[in-house]
């Protein structure tokens, strides 16, 4: 096999925002789709991660443990070749992805210039400057309860800008990255109901399960709406910071859920009266467990969009 150009994509988000879970759900999400896209590990450890995580989410119904080190996965997204009236059909498309999952604490504002904070920042910047795609996770529940999404964005963003400027990597006054902003935990009633009240839900006619969805073009609006209930009121600055540092056409919003909604296996249809897929664990009341099969929502889409954008830009990073 000819060597595929690799594209570095970095996960960015506060601790507990769902970075690791989103990656863990990627394989399941692809397998739920009716198209030809699939994900394949490009080294044994990356393959093992896909297998183990799929098994944990489907059989064990467990969330993956949060990453404690900078984890790097080498995957390939393989899908149908491009078609067109004047384009010759190719057998397949392959997008080589190097996904880097940093612990959320790496993005946290440091409490002092400790040696550990320096180490973590250096590690993070090396990853971000190498990447041209970013998956930024915005956890509306955390924002409502803690309100620190902006804290986890502006510090590293300024450092990244500084590094990129230093390396003369700015493009038209902005960072060259494509950024997929994922509003996570769509399965939580508070997020779903906000989308419903704002009339941002749109049916997907092709979806046999009739899961509620927020279209890509409406996701930004939901982000804005959720920002209003931030515990600190700083979430609105997240959107402004993104617009200032990234090209508008390289930002795309997604409303996502890694575990999706609960689906009655008899009716196989979404039920507004019974959709919670995260419930208290009978064995350990303090814990939560995944109730039924997982149906990830908008987990593959950000990756495919980033992969395709980077492939088009011809950057082999």
């Amino acid at each position, binding site marked *: 096999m000819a060597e595929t150009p690799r594209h570095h994509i970095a996960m960015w988000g506060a601790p507990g925002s769902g970075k690791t879970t989103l990656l863990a759900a990627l394989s399941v999400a692809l397998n739920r789709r009716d198209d030809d896209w699939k994900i394949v590990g490009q080294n044994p450890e990356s393959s093992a991660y896909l297998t183990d995580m799929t098994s944990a989410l489907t059989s064990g119904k467990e969330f993956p443990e949060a990453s404690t080190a900078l*984890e790097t996965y080498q995957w390939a997204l393989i899908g149908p070749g491009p078609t067109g009236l004047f384009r010759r059909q190719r057998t397949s498309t392959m997008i080589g992805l190097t996904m880097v999952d940093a612990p959320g604490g790496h993005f946290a504002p440091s409490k002092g210039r400790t*040696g550990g904070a320096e180490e973590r920042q250096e590690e993070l910047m090396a990853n971000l400057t190498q990447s041209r795609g970013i998956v930024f996770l915005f956890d509306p529940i955390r924002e409502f309860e803690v309100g620190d999404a902006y804290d986890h964005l502006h510090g590293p963003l300024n450092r990244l800008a500084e590094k990129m400027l230093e390396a003369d990597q700015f493009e038209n006054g902005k960072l060259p990255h494509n950024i997929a902003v994922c509003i996570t935990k769509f399965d939580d009633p508070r997020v779903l109901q906000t989308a419903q009240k704002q009339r941002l839900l749109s049916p997907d006619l092709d979806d046999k399960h009739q899961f509620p969805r927020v279209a890509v073009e409406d996701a930004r609006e939901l982000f804005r709406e959720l920002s209003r209930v931030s515990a600190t009121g700083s979430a609105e600055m997240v959107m402004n910071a993104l617009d200032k540092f990234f090209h508008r056409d390289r930002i795309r919003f997604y409303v996502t859920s890694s575990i999706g909604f609960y689906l009655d296996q008899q009716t196989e249809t979404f039920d507004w009266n019974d959709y919670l897929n995260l419930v208290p664990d009978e064995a350990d009341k303090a814990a939560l467990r995944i109730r039924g099969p997982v149906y990830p929502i908008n987990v593959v889409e950000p990756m495919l969009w980033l992969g395709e954008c980077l492939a088009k830009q011809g950057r082999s990073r």
Partner: protein
Amino acid sequence: MTESPATVHHVTVDYEWALEGKPPGSYNDYEVLEHSGGLGLEIFDEIRSRYTTGATGDQPQVTIAFVGTRQGGQKLYYIVLALQNEWSGHRDGTNRKIYYTRWFYVPYDQIAGHRVSYEALYDAFKDLGDERPPRVAVRADANLPSETFEDAISAAGLLMTGEPVCVVGAEQVPMVKRLRFIDEVASLLPYGMRARLAAATWVSATAGHRIRLSFAPHAPDGTHKVVWARGAPIPPAERTATAYVEQLTHRRVPLEELVERLAQKTTELPFRDKGPHIALVLLGECAVPAAKNHAVAGPSSADADEPAAGGDAPTQILESPPKGAGQTVAMPRPPTTLGGLIISFRKAVDPAEISEGLRVLLAAADTDEGRRQLQKALRTWDCFEAVIRRHPSADRLYEELAEAAFAHDIYQNEIADELLRTRAIPKPFKAALRAMRGEDPGPGWKRMLPRKGKRHIYGGSALVVGGVLLMITSLNFFSGPDLPVAPPAGSAPAGVAFVPQQVVIQADEPDQYLAHVYAQLLRNLGHRADVQDVGPLDPARPQIVITTDSAPYPRHEPLMTAQSKSTLVFDADEIPADRVESVLKEAKLTVEVGTDFPDEAKLKAEFGELPLKRKPISQIVEDIKGGEVALAILPSGRAEIAPPYQESPLLDGLLPPRTVQVLSSGLPAGTEANLEGVAERVAEKWRTDPGGADQPETAAKFADSIMPAVEPPSTPPATPVTTIKDADGFTVPTGVLVFVGAVLILIIGVVALVWSPARVPDEPW
């Protein structure tokens, strides 16, 4: 391993610690929650970040790391041990389990030279939990391997490439066994490489980590892969690694000897740059019989185990003799044990031989155990006076000898005291000891004083001391009873408050000495301790029982087991061996026995009115040395029993060995570990010299010498009201005694100052 505590050598070490975790309900990432005060938060935080392994889950794992710090202008290395994945019982804000990682930092120089394994460190710290005594006892002298394993050799060799090594295929192998493998690999390297080794029993294969030797399900790119129990080929281009494996495989000494010698190479050595090259040369020195290379007897300084620059091949040429010796000395294969070196040194005749022999001897004795052995030898052989006096620079050699034997342990050292009292000990040696104790006044300031200066100093000092004591006691009287006093806010360093526990110690009459030793050891560990003579023990209280019958205490933990055997010693010049029995039966000669000798009734039953004279063992030994006693009963195996004195088996049947056990219950794990750590020394002391008439004092002195009192690192414990028990059972507050003492000292000071000079003759300067 089921060795009794008495046979395991431990080394007591200081340590720093940090607890990594999250507060319950936290939305943030892991952080350092608490830490000790000896190092700054920035160091703990940096190290936890640098050596993160990405290994998650609820399986315990161990990570080993290192850190070099600069303290007071000196570089100090720590071996770092992280015990990972202990569920805290709490969850974070997103409902995930919070796992603790407990970090322990042990000063490298406190374990180097003691062949301390990582497993021993793990054992010492694994059960501490939130109770952290100021010091812990760590098992030393790790077992020497008798066979090599292909994968350990492969891993050791591959580490010489400077690149990380990952062991795969060990998912089902228990964690402790993986840790033991890391020890096996490390034992095949010069010990000094441990000061730069990061290793882990498990890492995430996808994590970007800095662990040099790790276990993982897959070996990532850029890492050498070793398959568990199957080894790994060494890339031919890696010449140092290939040569290292070659040396290990085709060594010319038994594996035990090789590992023992590598453990003596304690200078810190990196895995990069010239490190592997130096390691290869050091291995070359250790892998050939010592006759070819006597340098392995031990380096004389921290840098002495660095090989000569440019030496690719194992060193085969003997070191040059000291300046002035004139020619190369062809030495026979030197002995490898300290005892052998001592014997060899005593045979040295010419100055070059004496210098060289002493150099090797002192280098080999550069461990705690070695120094203890050397101290005993100095006492037995009068500081090698018969040898050293032949050397033209005898004074300098005595100074070196005193420095090497006592520099680490000069205060409250019974052997040093004894040497200072013994007339046969050369004066330069005594002078060196006194100088080390700060007793040497030096000629300068003394001469600057007037002739009656000493009297003024004594008198003035007495007045000052008396005055200060008087002030303190007066303040105490006015401020009420000795209530526990809290430290000022913010004065305590970060850490967990150390709460002293009252421990009861019970022992039979013959074992009161041991009881007082343990009482003092416990006090030195920050506990309060009482020796209880009678009455049943309260099972709920922390306690130590010293007994010859452990059956009534099935739930108690053994701290120490020791066996003492008494033997008859006779002066063969005075009593021929075949006449000993008849001399005893005649009952004319007095037999000297120890103060605690328990078998007088048995002796009298056998030999009628045999006259016995009870003395402290140390005095009997003095009598033997002076040839002043014909018959004595002593603990067997004492070094002083030398010709013309001989041991006789005549009373062996009558004086059976006595086994005493020290059992504990309810003691904190750290305290138990500390006590186990000194068990061997306590047992040895009890076997050879079980105290005297003044048991509490000598016991306390001995306990202080093996484990000095250390203040807890955090909030000081409340000071209990100490009382002294008099003969009638009344208690006298210490404060009153101090007050009376202060007044007496004041009076003495005044008398010293005003007394007629004619009545206080000055000592000659």
